């Protein structure tokens, strides 16, 4: 258990000030779960306060209470000395509370200024508002053109729009929910500068994250949640990631065992000049992608989301078959035009990014969700009829081996937490002993304990000779598990480089589309990493 610490160095000059926000004994009970249980939290003016915790620790619920999205069952919220209960987000905004969400809430077909106007009370003059946007964006180093349409913006730019939208209301407290999950390392640094400048001007910031290094770099104080309760307060600069992890997960951070890749395995997955025009007008066209993944190696593809990852995965999995056969080859078979079922037969297994609704059917049991992809490979079908007993025992085995916390094979997929469902889906695909495994965002939104477990099982599969392709936005993760790394930017794929021969900075630059030989791409820099003027 951590103890309450004052923060003399970080909070110099704010001593003795009235707290901006005080939560006392906040409790939120949902029908099936206690999301928050007696949470105390104090944020001073100008303080960057981290709220740290694993998935399901109750961070989001707490922020929703502060922002008026939901109401606490019990407990008190004190805002600048006055007890308040925000009725709704508009009320919270009028108090001076702003929030930037993890998943953006912008209308793609409207311009930046129109989107901002929608969040403001009344009907502001758009010309006037554009000038205010430009002023704020210049002041805080958040370059964005108010006249551009949102669909043409990169994820990083969209985040800037959200931040500017909050800043226009002169917030006294800004809530940032996992803001860096979509940014390049360079863009993260830029964001931190902006947040520090805001804090220096007296704005308080609640920074929600599970990335320990970022919190250490940015935040003055931290409150750690676990299972809906506060497990500690700390000053991140005085802690190590290890000690904070212990507060967060209650034990030491697990480490992956990663041996050298065996060289010279056969080619299992090959992209041979894969080009594909996206059906979606806002999608990304794939241009001349080439890649080879050998038996016994893990190849990672880094990149800011929205640069063609989705389209590439559809092309490989067969959910979006191509017009030609040769661009996607699985174990020597040209599979470009095949449906997903036939590619599975050729030896492919695939863990998609969305778990509920794609990787698993929410209303079906885990046993039935095992049938979803393992029916043919594990022989659950006999004479057209399903062998439910075999599916149940497969699911039970998967639950046991992958340590899935659930009510058993009969539990509905939707009753599982995101991390546990991900473990089940990874387990289901790995247990089919694929020749090629493609994994998208293996640990997205998964707590650190489960993340380490999932990474280890991917590495184990590689050691058993499988060819693994991992697409992730988390650079740390790719550097931890991959033998080679390539970068996707604007629908193009860089050459793959051995992980030991590169570093985060180089890959970060490549993520802007600027790798050697990238050619004419340089003028079409993807905006997520656009360097501010």
């Amino acid at each position, binding site marked *: 258990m951590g103890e309450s610490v004052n923060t003399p160095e970080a909070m110099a000059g704010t001593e003795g000030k009235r707290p901006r926000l005080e939560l006392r004994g906040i409790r939120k009970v*949902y*029908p*099936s779960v206690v999301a928050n249980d007696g949470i105390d939290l104090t944020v001073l003016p100008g303080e960057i306060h981290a709220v740290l915790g694993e998935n399901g620790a109750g961070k989001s619920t707490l922020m929703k209470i502060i922002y008026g999205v939901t109401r606490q069952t019990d407990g008190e919220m004190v805002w600048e000395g006055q007890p308040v209960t925000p009725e709704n987000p508009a009320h919270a905004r009028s108090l001076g509370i702003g929030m930037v969400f993890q998943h953006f809430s912008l209308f793609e077909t409207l311009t930046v200024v129109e989107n901002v106007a929608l969040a403001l009370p009344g009907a502001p003059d758009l010309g006037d508002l554009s000038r205010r946007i430009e002023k704020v964006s210049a002041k805080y180093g958040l370059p964005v053109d108010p006249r551009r349409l949102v669909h043409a913006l990169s994820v990083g730019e969209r985040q800037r729009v959200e931040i500017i939208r909050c800043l226009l209301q002169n917030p006294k407290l800004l809530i940032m929910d996992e803001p860096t999950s979509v940014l390049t390392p360079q863009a993260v640094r830029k964001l931190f500068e902006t947040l520090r400048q805001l804090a220096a001007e007296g704005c308080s910031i609640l920074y929600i994250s599970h990335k320990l290094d970022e919190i250490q770099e940015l935040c003055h104080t931290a409150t750690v949640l676990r299972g809906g309760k506060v497990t500690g307060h700390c000053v991140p600069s005085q802690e190590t990631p290890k000690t904070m992890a212990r507060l967060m997960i209650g034990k030491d951070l697990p480490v992956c065992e990663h041996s050298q890749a065996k060289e010279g395995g056969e080619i299992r997955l090959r992209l041979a000049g894969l080009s594909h025009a996206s059906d979606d007008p806002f999608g990304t066209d794939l241009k001349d992608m080439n890649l080879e993944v050998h038996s016994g190696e893990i190849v990672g593809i880094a990149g800011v989301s929205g640069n063609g990852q989705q389209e590439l995965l559809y092309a490989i*999995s*067969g*959910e979006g078959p191509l017009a030609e056969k040769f661009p996607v080859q699985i174990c020597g078979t040209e599979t470009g035009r095949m*449906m*997903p*079922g*036939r*590619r*599975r037969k050729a030896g492919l297994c*695939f863990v*998609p990014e*969305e778990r509920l*609704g*794609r*990787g*698993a*059917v*929410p*209303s*079906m049991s885990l046993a*039935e969700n095992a*049938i*979803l*992809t393992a*029916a043919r490979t594990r022989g*659950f*079908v006999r004479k*057209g*009829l*399903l062998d439910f007993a075999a599916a149940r025992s497969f699911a039970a085995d998967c639950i046991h081996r992958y340590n899935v916390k659930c009510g058993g094979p009969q539990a509905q997929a939707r009753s599982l937490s995101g991390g546990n469902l991900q473990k089940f889906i990874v387990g289901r695909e790995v247990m089919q002993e694929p020749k090629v495994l493609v994994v998208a965002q293996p640990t997205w939104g998964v707590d650190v304990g489960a993340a380490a477990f999932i990474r280890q099982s991917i590495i184990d599969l590689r050691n058993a000779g499988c060819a693994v392709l991992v697409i992730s936005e988390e650079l740390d993760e790719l550097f931890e598990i991959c033998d080679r790394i390539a970068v996707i930017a604007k629908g193009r794929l860089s050459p793959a480089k051995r992980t030991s021969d590169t570093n985060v900075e180089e890959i970060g630059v490549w993520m802007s589309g600027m790798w050697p030989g990238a050619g004419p791409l340089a003028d079409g820099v993807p905006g997520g990493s656009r360097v501010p003027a």
Partner: protein
Amino acid sequence: MASRGVHVFRLETRPEASEAMRYWSPAIAVALTLAGGMVIFAALGKNPVEGFRVFFVSPMRDLNGIAELLLKATPLMLIAVGLAVGFRANVWNIGAEGQFLMGAVGATGVALAFKGASAVVLLPSMIVAGAIGGALWAAIPAVLKTRFNANEILTSLMLVYIAQLGVSWLVFGPWKDPAGFNFPQTETFEDAALLPMLIEGTRLNLAFVVALAALAGGYVFMAKSFVGFKMRVAGESEAAARYAGFSTVAMVWIGMLVGGAAAGIAGMAEVAGPAGQLTDKLSSGYGFAAIIVAFVGRLNPIGIFFASLLMALLYIGGEQAQQYLSLPSSISKVFQGMLLFFLLGSDVLIQYRLRRVVRAHKVA
């Protein structure tokens, strides 16, 4: 600051919909329909208790009454179980009425073309022809859906009216019975083309056994087969079906063809059963009533069995109400409508709850 408010009701999603209530909901809907029916009887100046007796009790007073009930329930069962296969995969075939008619046309064609053939040959061929007729009619919306992404709800519904006009043309034109005093009907079928009776002295025929077999087959298909599983996945989540590699095109085809074939067999059972010939008044809205049956039965073959008995009772009760209470014939439709309305209503309230909220108007 004073606040004047308007009280409004708002639907709020329940945190967890009760699984048990999902199965209770049809029972609640039936109870409410009965209660609503009593009110309507009273409003029409009839004694509600007497109305209830005539409508719901007297149809089942003897063996013949029960046989009539099962006879009426037969096409509903057949059509509803076929539709349920598609509905589970979100394939919305609303045109079973037309497929029913085209099945009747197919079976009639065989019966008229092979006069003199023995029943052992003729009846199975008529069943097959009925199934093919219905399936062909259902194939049109399937093509339009899979090739041009045309909404099958609209296309299958529109084809109902085309089928009705097609039947009219046949019975007014080429298939008109020369000895039929110019009535719009075909010749009455020979005995070999009529389904054998199950119970002596009643009109209940072999089609009831076929319908029970269809229910059993539907149960195995939906609950045990891999294809049925794929269709359930497609209905629950299209993205998951695509991810797993289940072809959505195949799901549309299976859903439409099974529904069409089942409706077509029901049409065959009608011309080779109680009707004994094809007329322009063949269907009494079975194809539409079966949609209600499928949903009241929760798309489950066992549920459909009971729901079709209930719907048959509403049909027969409506006829009795015309006879003995001199109520208009639309009374059956009113009861059907109430049943569907209350079912949908209770389903909504199982998913959501009503909350009274005060919408505040700030007064400056």
